[in-house]
C-alpha cells in the first residue's frame, strides 16, 4: 500500500483525447518526495530544452504535495509546473484552497496534461471516472463564474474547480489559474492552460488517503496545532504586523498598511510616498475594507483564514488573499476602493496581481514620456481609474497596444523599442517583481533575488528576520525560543547583527553567514513545495510550526518513508538542483541572476560578486551557476551530468564550456 500519496498520476493527452491512470514509482517519491520535486523530475524526463511554452510537447502538471489530504494542518497546495511563456524557464506557481486534497481523494497525485485540444474543453475528474468535455459554452467566461457554472452543470456543489478566465484563453503571458479563494499566478501558467484549450479542471473525490503510522502522525499534528495556537496568541515583537503572526500573509485581516504603502514604490515601481498613511487614509481604508469584506476564509484544513470574500455593491462576489489588496491601488496611485474594484475584474479575467498592475503603470509611463502616443490608446478615458480599467480590458483581449502589453514589460519593451526598455526596470529573469526600492544593499536579499528560481521574493524569504533588531536584549529574547534553526550558529548570526555600525548591512551578515542563511530559507520553501505545505504556516515565517526538525517525522509517519534531517536536506537539494539543471538547459546563466538595477540605491559590485561566487560554490555550482559534475554525482543526478556533457554545457572535466 502507498501512504500519504495515492501512487497514481492521471495522464491526459489532449491532442488524442486519451486518458490514462498511471502507477508511479515509489523510488521517485523517496528521491524527489512529491509536488514540485516529482513535477521537476517529470519535466526533466519529458520536456526537452527546445520545447516552447506553447508547444504541444510542453506539459502542464498539476501536482499535489506529498502530505496533502492528510491531517497535517495547512497542507493543501497544488504545485503547477510548466514552461513559462514569459521567462522561458520552468514556472512553478502554487495554489492553496481545496483542489489538491480533492484530487488526492479522487485517487491521483498529479494531473499531467500534454498535447493540445482542438476545441475548448474542460476536464471532469470524478474518482475513477474522467472525461474531457466540451467547454464551448464557457468561452470568454470569468474564472470564478466558470467554477460556479460547472458546479451547477455537473450538480456537484462539492467539486473543486481550477479555471482560467479570458486572459488564459488569450494567452496573456501573466495569466493565472484561479481556484476560488486561491490562484496559481506567476509565470503565465494560465496562458499555457489556455494554449492547451483547457478551460477548467473539475475534481471530486471520495476515497481514502492512508497514513503509515497513524498514532505517531496524530501526535505530530497535535503538536503543530498546539504550537499554532500559541504562536497566534504570542505575536513576534518588533516586526511588521503581517510577519508577527502566521498566515499567507494576513493581508485581509490586518488593517495597518503603513509599512507597505510607505516603503513600497507606487506607479511603475517609482515613487516612495513617505507620510502617506495618515489617520484619514487609515480610516477611509478601514471603512472600505469593512464594507467590502464579508468573511475571512480559510483553505482546506487550516485555522488561519487569511483570505476573504469581497462583495462590492453592484459587482459579483469574489475572493481575495495576500498582497493583491495593494498592488492595483499602488500601481494606479489610487485608493483601496479602486484596488478592490479592479481586482474583481482582474480575478474573473485571471491575471497575476503582481505583473498586471505593473504592466499598466508601465504603459502609462511610456505614454507620459512620449514613447507611446495617444494614438496607441484610442478612446482611453481621461480619468486615472478609468484608464486602468481600459488597459486591463485591452490587455486581456489582446486588442491594439494590449496585444503587446499582454507579453509583460520585458517583451513589450523590446517590441516597442524607442527606449522603452529603460522603463521595464523592475524585472528579474524577465518577470515583474514586487515594487520595492530600498537604500542599503542587504546581502541576504541580494542572493535571494539573484538565485531564487521561483523568481518571486516571497517564495524564498522567511525564517530569518528581515532586518536587525535595534537592541541586543531584543535579540537575546528573540533567539531564546528559536528552536526551528537547523543549527545554533544561526542564533549567533542574528545576535551579532546590528542596525548600524560594523556589524550591519551590507558587510554583515558576512558572505559565509549569508550563504548559510539563504540556503536555509530556500530549502524550507522547496520542502514546503514538495510536501504541499502552505508557506504561511511554514517557510515564509519566522518561528513557524513546521521546520527541519519535524518535517522528517511527518514524512516517516505519514508516507512510511524512513526520513531523517540529513536525508530530507539531501532530497530537497536534489530536486532543487534538478530544477536548476532544467533551467540551465534552457539557457539560464550567471548573467540572468541579478536583482533590478535600481532595487537598492547603494550597490557594492565587489561584494556582490563575492556573494554570488561564494554562494555558487556553496551550492555546488560552477562560476556560471551550473551544477558541477561532482555535486550532481553526490545527489545521484549522474544522468544530468551526462546530459550536460552531451550538450556541451559541461566538459568531461566538469568545466562549463
Amino acid at each position: 500500500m502507498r501512504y500519504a500519496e495515492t501512487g497514481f498520476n492521471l495522464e491526459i493527452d489532449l491532442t488524442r483525447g486519451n486518458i490514462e491512470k498511471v502507477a508511479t514509482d515509489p523510488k521517485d517519491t523517496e528521491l524527489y518526495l512529491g509536488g514540485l520535486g516529482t513535477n521537476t523530475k517529470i519535466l526533466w524526463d519529458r520536456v526537452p530544452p527546445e520545447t516552447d511554452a506553447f508547444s504541444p510537447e510542453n506539459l502542464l502538471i498539476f501536482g499535489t504535495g506529498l502530505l496533502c489530504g492528510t491531517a497535517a494542518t495547512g497542507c493543501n497546495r497544488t504545485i503547477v509546473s510548466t514552461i513559462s511563456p514569459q521567462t522561458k524557464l520552468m514556472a512553478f506557481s502554487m495554489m492553496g484552497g481545496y483542489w489538491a486534497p480533492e484530487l488526492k481523494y479522487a485517487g491521483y497525485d498529479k494531473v499531467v496534461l500534454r498535447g493540445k485540444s482542438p476545441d475548448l474543453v474542460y476536464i471532469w475528474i470524478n474518482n475513477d471516472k474522467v472525461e474531457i468535455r466540451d467547454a464551448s459554452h464557457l468561452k470568454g467566461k470569468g474564472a470564478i463564474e466558470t467554477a460556479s457554472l460547472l458546479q451547477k452543470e455537473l450538480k456537484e456543489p462539492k467539486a473543486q474547480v481550477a479555471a482560467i478566465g479570458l486572459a488564459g484563453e488569450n494567452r496573456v503571458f501573466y495569466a493565472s489559474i484561479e481556484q476560488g479563494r486561491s490562484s496559481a499566478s506567476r509565470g503565465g501558467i494560465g496562458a499555457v492552460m489556455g494554449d492547451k484549450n483547457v478551460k477548467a479542471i473539475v475534481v471530486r473525490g471520495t476515497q481514502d488517503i492512508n497514513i503509515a503510522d497513524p498514532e505517531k502522525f496524530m501526535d505530530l499534528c497535535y503538536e503543530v496545532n498546539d504550537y499554532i495556537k500559541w504562536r497566534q496568541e504570542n505575536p513576534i515583537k518588533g516586526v511588521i504586523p503581517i510577519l508577527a503572526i502566521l498566515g499567507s500573509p494576513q493581508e485581509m485581516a490586518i488593517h495597518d498598511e503603513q509599512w507597505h504603502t510607505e516603503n513600497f514604490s507606487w506607479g511603475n515601481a517609482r515613487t516612495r510616498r513617505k507620510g502617506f498613511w495618515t489617520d484619514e487614509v487609515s480610516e477611509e481604508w478601514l471603512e472600505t475594507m469593512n464594507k467590502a469584506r464579508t468573511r475571512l476564509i480559510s483553505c482546506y484544513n487550516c485555522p488561519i483564514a487569511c483570505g476573504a470574500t469581497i462583495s462590492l455593491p453592484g459587482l459579483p462576489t469574489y475572493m481575495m488573499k495576500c498582497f493583491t489588496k495593494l498592488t492595483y491601488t499602488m500601481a494606479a496611485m489610487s485608493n483601496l476602493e479602486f484596488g478592490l474594484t479592479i481586482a474583481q475584474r482582474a480575478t474573473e479575467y485571471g491575471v497575476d496581481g503582481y505583473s498586471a498592475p505593473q504592466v499598466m503603470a508601465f504603459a502609462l509611463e511610456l505614454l507620459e514620456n512620449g514613447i507611446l502616443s495617444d494614438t496607441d490608446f484610442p478612446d482611453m478615458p481621461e480619468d486615472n481609474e478609468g484608464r486602468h480599467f481600459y488597459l486591463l480590458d485591452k490587455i486581456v483581449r489582446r486588442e491594439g497596444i494590449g496585444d503587446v502589453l499582454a507579453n509583460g514589460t520585458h517583451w513589450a519593451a523590446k517590441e516597442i523599442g524607442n527606449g522603452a526598455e529603460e522603463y521595464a526596470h523592475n524585472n528579474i529573469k524577465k518577470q515583474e517583481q514586487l515594487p520595492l526600492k530600498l537604500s542599503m544593499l542587504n546581502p541576504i536579499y541580494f542572493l535571494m533575488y539573484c538565485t531564487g528560481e521561483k523568481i518571486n521574493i516571497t517564495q524564498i524569504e522567511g525564517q530569518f528576520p528581515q532586518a536587525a533588531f535595534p537592541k541586543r536584549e531584543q535579540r537575546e529574547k528573540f533567539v531564546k525560543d528559536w528552536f526551528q534553526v537547523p543549527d545554533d550558529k544561526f542564533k549567533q548570526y542574528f545576535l551579532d547583527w546590528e542596525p548600524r555600525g560594523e556589524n550591519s548591512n551590507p558587510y554583515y551578515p558576512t558572505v559565509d553567514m549569508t550563504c548559510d542563511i539563504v540556503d536555509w530559507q530556500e530549502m524550507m520553501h522547496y520542502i514546503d513545495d514538495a510536501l504541499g505545505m502552505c508557506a504561511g504556516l511554514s517557510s515564509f515565517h519566522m518561528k513557524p510550526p513546521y521546520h527541519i526538525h519535524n518535517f522528517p517525522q511527518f514524512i516517516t509517519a505519514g508516507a512510511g518513508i524512513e526520513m531523517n534531517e540529513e536525508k530530507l536536506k539531501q532530497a530537497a537539494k536534489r530536486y532543487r538542483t534538478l530544477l536548476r539543471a532544467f533551467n540551465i538547459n534552457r539557457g539560464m546563466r550567471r548573467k540572468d541572476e541579478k536583482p533590478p538595477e535600481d532595487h537598492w540605491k547603494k550597490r557594492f559590485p565587489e561584494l556582490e560578486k563575492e556573494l554570488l561566487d561564494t554562494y555558487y560554490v556553496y551550492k555546488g555550482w560552477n562560476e556560471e551557476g551550473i551544477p558541477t559534475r561532482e555535486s550532481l554525482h553526490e545527489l545521484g543526478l549522474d544522468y544530468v551530468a551526462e546530459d550536460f556533457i552531451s550538450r556541451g554545457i559541461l566538459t568531461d572535466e566538469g568545466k562549463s564550456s
Partner: protein
Amino acid sequence: MTGEKKKKIIKTIRIDVDKCHGCRACEMICSAFHAKPRYSSSNPARSRIRVIRDPLADIYVPVYAGEYTVAECAGRDKYTINGKEYSECAFCRASCPSRADFKEPDSGLPLKCDMCEGEDEPLCVKWCTVDALVVEEREEEVEEEIEQEELEVGLEELASKYGMNTIMDAISRLSKKD
C-alpha cells in the same frame, strides 16, 4: 411502566455559522477518527459532519449526521435567512436516499454522529479552533424509559417498509426451513 427519575448527561454542540470559515478540518478529523484502525486514513466523504459551503453566497453550515431514513420527505424545504438562500434540505441531519451525504461512499451504509464516543471532547469541536463548534454538557433528570431493544427497532423499520403481514410470513417461512 413509568420508572424512576434518573440523571442523564445531555451533550449539545453549539454551531455558530458566523464563525465558520469553511476549512473542513471538522470533516477531515471526523473521518480520520472513525477510520479503522483509528486515524489510519482520512476522507471527508466518510465524515459524520458536513459543511454546506457556498463561499460566493457566504453560506457555511456545518451539519451533523442524524438518523437514517428509508424514504425521503414528501416535500422539501428551502430556507432564506437574512437574504441568503440555503440549498434544499440544507439543515437536515438525515442520512436520506435523496442525497449522498452521510453515507459511506462505497457501501452506501448510513453514517451517524456518535459524539466521538469514548473521547473527552468531540474531535470536530477540538479541531475547530475558531469556536464555530463548541460542546456543552448539562445534566437533566429524566424519567427512565425502558429502552427499546435494537432488534425491535429494526423490526419496526422493516415492518414499515414491507408491511407487518409480509414480515410475519417471511419469519414463519424461515422458521420452517430449520
